[in-house]
């Protein structure tokens, strides 16, 4: 649009006025630098996404583990075609559906309470409700493992003590346990999407329905909900995909109960068999990719032409419903959600860390020996420093890459930008487990002595690949809010391209960069499924060490480390919220 109006006539005049040589050399120099950048991005993204994917396909046809001589055959695909795996597939989809539907209902209810009612302290409640999303799932999985243990779980003990019953009512090692744990993540995840839709909707669309004689409830059903349907569908599929990718919940609560899903089946076939069956695992990974692909295509197809623009940009506040005394009920509901998803698990970690043995809670069992043990555990410290190093460097790398990719793909008209965008988006379809296996093959197949495997850089590459789709999205939306005029105006007033980038674009987009950075850091800190495949002695990260301690029955030390991580989560979340607030006031 601006090209047509601003570029047409004045551009020709300038070209005519400028000297012939300037007209020739300037664009060609410019073009070559541009091409180098585009080519570099394609190589980097290709290495991060296409290469492991290609190696995954290669590995699925290869009879031996990565790096060994073998032959090509279809045995991998043949071996995954059996009845057990059909049950695994049903489990995977069924569990994901079973957690997505109630999560969505709950998220809509919570989002409505926060965005559309006069419930007291809504801004504070919003922070509390979204907090579970930022806690590494491995922490709450372990906490719930202790809370809902059928023999000695705290909840069961309290129940028995209160009612005198002898039978434990709760067993987290079940379908219900897996779903319950997944819901604690998907609800705040969905909430974050939906609350903004509730806020951004033009209130007159609802008001006009009321003027036409429809009651509040009818308006909600006929107008609000239907208008939100495309966005709700989108969130539904996103949550479904996340559920299929999920590793921690089925690992902790499914495997002990012999309930397997695709991710745990892949993990088991590599880690829990006499000889790791890489071909089987790789073939299974490829199968899950196909499932993802089908879901993503379904999502596109559903959303095709179904986005209603309900945002008018007019600064009206959304309709707030006065609940009267009911506002204390909604308030209590939000607090209950927070207690169940945060206070209970964190409380369990605190209790667990101070008693000699988990499950035996009496005064003479109180101790601080676990803190001492953790402090003297060299492996924990090493994992802590590895995690911090990977988090700081990885988040910076992810966001830098994401900023450049987003700039090229949405603010330039360069050739190749669509390819770059698609490549950056590709890891979105790859569960961490699948990407981990892809990189296993990829590192083993690297030509010559490039010793990546076995170092923390192997983890770094996987984290950057996994984080890029989100960082690109965050930065794209940041750039999209900045009008082209801001950039063009700077150029017209004499700033060079790089001065403009630094003084205008980065100056305006850095809050988004920082918010994305914290998100990426969280992502790295909580990552388990790729890490568990790619770590080796010396390059452990906290989540891997936690899992190992847990498998060795050291739930008490796990609690101590979990609390440390919780402190980090709260610190970073606080910084992030401060940044968001300052951004809102400046933009």
């Amino acid at each position: 649009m601006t090209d047509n109006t601003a570029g047409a006539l004045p551009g020709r005049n300038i070209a005519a006025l400028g000297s012939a040589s300037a007209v020739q050399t300037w664009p060609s120099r410019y073009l070559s630098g541009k091409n180098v950048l585009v080519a570099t991005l394609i190589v980097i993204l290709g290495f991060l996404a296409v290469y492991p994917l290609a190696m995954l396909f290669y590995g699925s046809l290869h009879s031996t583990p990565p790096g060994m001589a073998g032959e090509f055959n279809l045995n991998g695909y043949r071996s995954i075609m059996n009845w057990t795996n059909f049950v695994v597939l049903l489990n995977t989809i069924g569990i994901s559906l079973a957690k997505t539907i109630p999560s969505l209902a709950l998220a809509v209810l919570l989002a409505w309470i926060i965005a559309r009612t006069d419930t007291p302290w809504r801004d504070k409640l919003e922070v509390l409700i979204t907090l579970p999303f930022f806690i590494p799932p491995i922490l709450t999985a372990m906490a719930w493992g202790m809370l809902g243990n059928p023999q000695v779980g705290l909840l069961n003990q309290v129940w028995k003590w209160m009612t005198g019953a002898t039978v434990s009512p709760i067993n987290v090692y079940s379908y219900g346990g897996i779903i319950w744990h997944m819901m604690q993540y998907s609800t705040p995840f969905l909430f974050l999407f939906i609350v903004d839709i509730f806020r951004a909707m033009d209130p007159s669309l609802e008001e006009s329905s009321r003027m036409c004689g429809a009651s509040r409830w009818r308006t909600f059903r006929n107008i609000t909900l239907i208008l939100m349907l495309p966005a709700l569908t989108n969130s539904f599929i996103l949550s479904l995909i996340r559920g299929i990718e999920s590793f921690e919940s089925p690992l902790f609560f499914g495997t002990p109960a012999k309930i397997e899903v695709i991710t745990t089946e892949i993990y088991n076939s590599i880690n829990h068999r006499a000889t790791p069956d890489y071909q089987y695992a790789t073939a299974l990974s490829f199968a899950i990719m196909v499932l993802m692909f089908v879901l993503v295509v379904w999502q596109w197809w559903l959303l095709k032409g179904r986005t209603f623009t309900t945002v008018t940009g007019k600064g009206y506040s959304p309709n707030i419903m006065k609940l009267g005394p009911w506002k204390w009920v909604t308030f209590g509901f939000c607090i209950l959600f927070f207690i169940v998803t945060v206070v209970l698990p964190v409380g369990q970690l605190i209790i667990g860390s101070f008693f000699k043995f988990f499950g035996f809670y009496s005064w003479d069992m109180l101790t601080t020996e676990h803190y001492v043990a953790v402090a003297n555990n060299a492996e924990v410290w090493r994992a802590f420093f590895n995690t911090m190093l990977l988090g700081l460097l990885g988040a910076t790398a992810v966001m830098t890459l994401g900023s450049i990719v987003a700039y090229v793909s949405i603010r330039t008209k360069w050739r190749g930008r669509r390819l770059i965008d698609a490549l950056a988006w590709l890891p979105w379809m790859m569960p961490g487990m699948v990407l981990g296996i892809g990189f296993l093959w990829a590192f083993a197949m690297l030509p010559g002595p490039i010793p990546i495997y076995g170092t923390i850089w192997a983890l770094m590459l996987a984290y950057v690949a996994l984080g890029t789709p989100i960082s690109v999205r965050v930065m794209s939306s940041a750039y999209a809010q900045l009008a082209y005029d801001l950039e063009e105006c700077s150029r017209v007033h004499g700033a060079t391209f790089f001065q403009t980038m630094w003084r205008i674009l980065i100056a305006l987009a850095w809050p988004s960069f920082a918010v994305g950075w914290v998100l990426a850091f969280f992502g790295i800190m909580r990552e388990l499924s790729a890490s568990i495949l790619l770590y080796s002695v010396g390059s452990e990260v906290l989540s891997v060490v936690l899992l190992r301690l847990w498998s060795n029955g050291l739930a008490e030390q796990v609690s101590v480390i979990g609390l440390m991580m919780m402190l980090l989560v709260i610190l970073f979340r606080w910084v992030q919220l401060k940044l968001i607030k300052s951004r809102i006031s400046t933009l």
Partner: protein
Amino acid sequence: MAAIVLESISKYFGTAAAVDNANLEVETGEFVTLLGPSGCGKTTTLRMVAGLEQNSTGRISIGGEVVSDAAQGFFIPPERRQLGMVFQSYAIWPHMTVFDNVAYPLRIRRKSSQEIKDRVTNALRLVEMERFADRPAPALSGGQQQRVAIARALVFEPRVLLLDEPLSNLDARLRTQTGDEFRQLQKRLGITSLYVTHDQGEAMALSDRVVVMSLGKILQVGSPEDIYRRPHSREVAAFFGSPNFLEAEVKDCRREENGSYRLDLDGGWKGLCHASGELAPGSKALVMVRPENMYLKSGDRVYGGGMSWNGIVKESIFRGANRSVSIDTAAGLLHIELNALSNPRPGENIEIFAAENSAWAVPA
């Protein structure tokens, strides 16, 4: 019987009064416009009539029936007030066709499908949109959406039609045309309408009566001509165009048969004019003369009453249809709009005058 009655209604957001003690009666079939700059409380007033905001004080009645009484804690929600409303953004639901949008109020009222079909078709014919019935709503232009919004507001024959700046999102030419069409439709159907706008021209052209608001208060209620030619205060006078204000001392004040007052003034010049209220002799008055009501004195034409000034032309700007001239006089710098053909040059000494019936005094 009055269709809408507002009795000392106010709306407080926190401690700030968005509307402060407003009183208004709208007769059945009347077209009344709430006019004022943004933030003057006109939209809040409309929304209180609609029931989308609850009034903090006072009582609102529609069709003789109380719909909200703050003192009694009585409040009828918007869906039970039987009103039609056109929103500034039109609020056409994007997930429905044109037909479904217009049929919505009837479906809510559980009308038979035959009746719905007939009445929607009629309503769409009224706004000349029957050809578009099956279009999805987002595929309409702004002007078409506006027509659909009107059809939807009229289809269930509401007691009152409320309109919140319905023309402000249209381009200038379409705005005039749509406004005139809507006014004809309103007259034909005889539907009571309460209309909000910040556009003076629109308010003049459409309304039976105009309510001028500022800072949450109603300043004056009257016919467009009253408001324009006989304002009660300087604020109302200055709201339309950019009139000349001349300070003067009142020499004499007499009541006229039509209820207005005739003043004899002295401000270094002498003249006669009218005012709406009594101004005591010796008090200060501000005389409003609109630039288009002043004339160049030429030849020996006789001018009945009024006032005249001598001055030197400072500036003369040709604007096509007319010519804006500023003249330095003993009463200050006066702006007048002249026929474009007359051409006083800067520096020229000229005499201008205003007829008695076009000069209007307000308290200083």
